[in-house]
């Protein structure tokens, strides 16, 4: 991006990235004890807030997951019983887990593929890039609740615009294809939510990919053209490797986002997760347990299982990236 400051000192020597300037400071050997205390003053507001609303709750969530508690009576310590229940006996948990996985494996690849296709198309020095970018990014800034309401109406079987288009297609082609009863069908409710999620987020993926594509030096393409590489070869051998860090970044954050899907199924299923739990996600199930079934301990246990699963998937991605992500020399 044009806005960034010189990144030289950011890509530092350790994971925490000591700045070049700090190294010089260290050499000078100045250690002003007054500035010590000053630093803590700067940190204090943020530190207190994070301790109170993040660190403490993390500990709280651990304890919570080991008790049975409906928020009213006294909490009863049950040890790992909540975990054992959700991992071995709870059929609904299993369903929510499978639904969540469904969303991850459908939304993430589609999101990346469509986002990349749009970004490549926009990166072709054609007219009107600005306008296209504004349009594609528009859903990203809108409220997900409002968007989900609109999609719920679009997927209405009798009078929704999507169903109408399918009716019309069936009539004009003589195939008489009828639209499914999207949100009332356990087979079609999930694809409807996938479409909403894609519509809502593909602009973000596109914009991030576009930033990645614009960083590829155009001379490389010229050189490859001279060598007789065709469009696909140039894409495969220049573009894909050079934007692989962007792909990796998007893969990880879209995956985490898809694991945490809540508002979309919540609004589209009118807060029920139906039909027959077909759109119940893990976060949705956490919400239900905590605030509908009065089962705080179980909700906390599900939250931890979700976290561990996201964590493992991220680790796997991070391990796999060595095989396909190319960093320029000197970076990462």
């Amino acid at each position: 991006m044009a806005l960034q400051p010189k990144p030289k000192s950011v890509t530092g020597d350790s994971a925490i990235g000591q700045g070049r300037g700090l190294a010089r400071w260290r050499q000078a050997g100045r250690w002003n004890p007054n500035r010590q205390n000053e630093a803590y003053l700067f940190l204090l507001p943020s530190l207190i807030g994070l301790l109170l609303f993040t660190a403490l709750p993390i500990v709280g969530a651990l304890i919570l997951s080991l008790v049975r508690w409906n928020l009213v009576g006294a909490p009863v310590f049950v040890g790992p019983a909540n975990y054992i229940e959700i991992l071995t006996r709870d059929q609904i948990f299993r369903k929510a887990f499978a639904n969540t996985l469904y969303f991850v494996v459908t939304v993430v690849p589609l999101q990346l593929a469509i986002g990349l296709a749009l970004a490549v198309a926009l990166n072709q020095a054609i007219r009107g890039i600005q306008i296209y970018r504004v349009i594609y990014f528009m859903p990203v800034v809108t409220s997900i609740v409002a968007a989900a309401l609109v999609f719920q109406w679009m997927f209405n079987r009798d009078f929704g615009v999507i169903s109408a288009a399918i009716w019309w297609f069936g009539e004009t082609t003589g195939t008489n294809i009828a639209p499914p009863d999207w949100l009332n069908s356990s087979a079609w409710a999930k694809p409807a939510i996938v479409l909403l999620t894609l519509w809502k987020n593909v602009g973000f993926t596109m914009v991030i990919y576009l930033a990645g594509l614009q960083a590829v030096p155009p001379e490389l393409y010229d050189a490859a053209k001279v060598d007789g590489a065709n469009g696909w070869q140039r894409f495969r051998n220049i573009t894909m490797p050079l934007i692989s860090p962007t792909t990796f970044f998007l893969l990880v954050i879209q995956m985490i986002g898809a694991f945490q899907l809540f508002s979309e199924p919540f609004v589209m299923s009118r807060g029920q997760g139906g039909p027959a739990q077909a759109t119940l996600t893990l976060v949705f199930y956490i919400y239900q347990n905590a605030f509908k079934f009065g089962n705080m301990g179980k909700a906390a246990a599900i939250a931890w299982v979700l976290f561990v699963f996201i964590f493992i998937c991220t680790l796997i991605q991070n391990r796999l990236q060595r095989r396909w992500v190319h960093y320029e020399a000197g970076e990462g």
Partner: protein
Amino acid sequence: MQAAVPAHRRPRPIKSLLLHLFLISGSAAMLLPFIWMLSTSLKTPPQIFTYPPVWLPDPIAWGNYRETVSVMPFGRFYLNSLIVASSITVLQLLTSSLAAFAFARLRFRGRNALFLLYLATLMIPFQVTMLPNFILMSWLRWFDTYQALILPPAFSAFSTFLLRQYFLGLPLDLDEAARIDGASSFRIWWQIVLPLSGPVLAALMIFVFLNNWNDFLWPLVITDSIEMRTLPVGLSILQGQYSVRWNLLMAGSVIAMLPVLIVYILGQKLFIQGFTMSGLGGR
């Protein structure tokens, strides 16, 4: 921008046409829900329940909007969303930039350990901390108050991390020169580092504001009375009470979306930059 592209890199006319066709059909898919929403919000019930669907409402039922705001206090929802989102944004930028300044520009005992701790909290998803926070808010008797809506999301390790990365890129000579002139750290933060961080602060501001303006789960669980609901939650209540009054639901959606869309179209460059910079960790 166009003029800067050398002639041999511009696509051929036929390819250009295909690209535009592809992008225009995509744009149509992107815009269709907005148009469908607007169209339905202005229809009378008989026009809604027809096949094939009508796109242009006739007559235009402006009364839908009047009815929507009369059955749900959308003015109050706006006010709440505005208060909550802007308070969170101000608090988060303030506390994060102070902490980021300490991490990036000051030396102190335990800096690396503390910073690692900040990074570690980034991994914990909100769903884990949400339940204890809910209990904490109830204990403090803050359930259904502005404090509960504002304070838990007001402190962010992510924003601190983002700003620290940016601050590290600013030349340290500036601090040193200012110190020789007798400036305090606080003054360096306020008068040197912050003014030089305009782009990243603007990006973060838009990102944080919009995320909290559109946030749903936390305001949903931590509020109860209709007076404390934010726009997204208010809209979902409208859905619960008027589930088949599609013209009212769409009018409500328009009411909820419109201000953000207008501001977005006016400042689209900043918005997209805001998301790109924040999304990419300040780069």
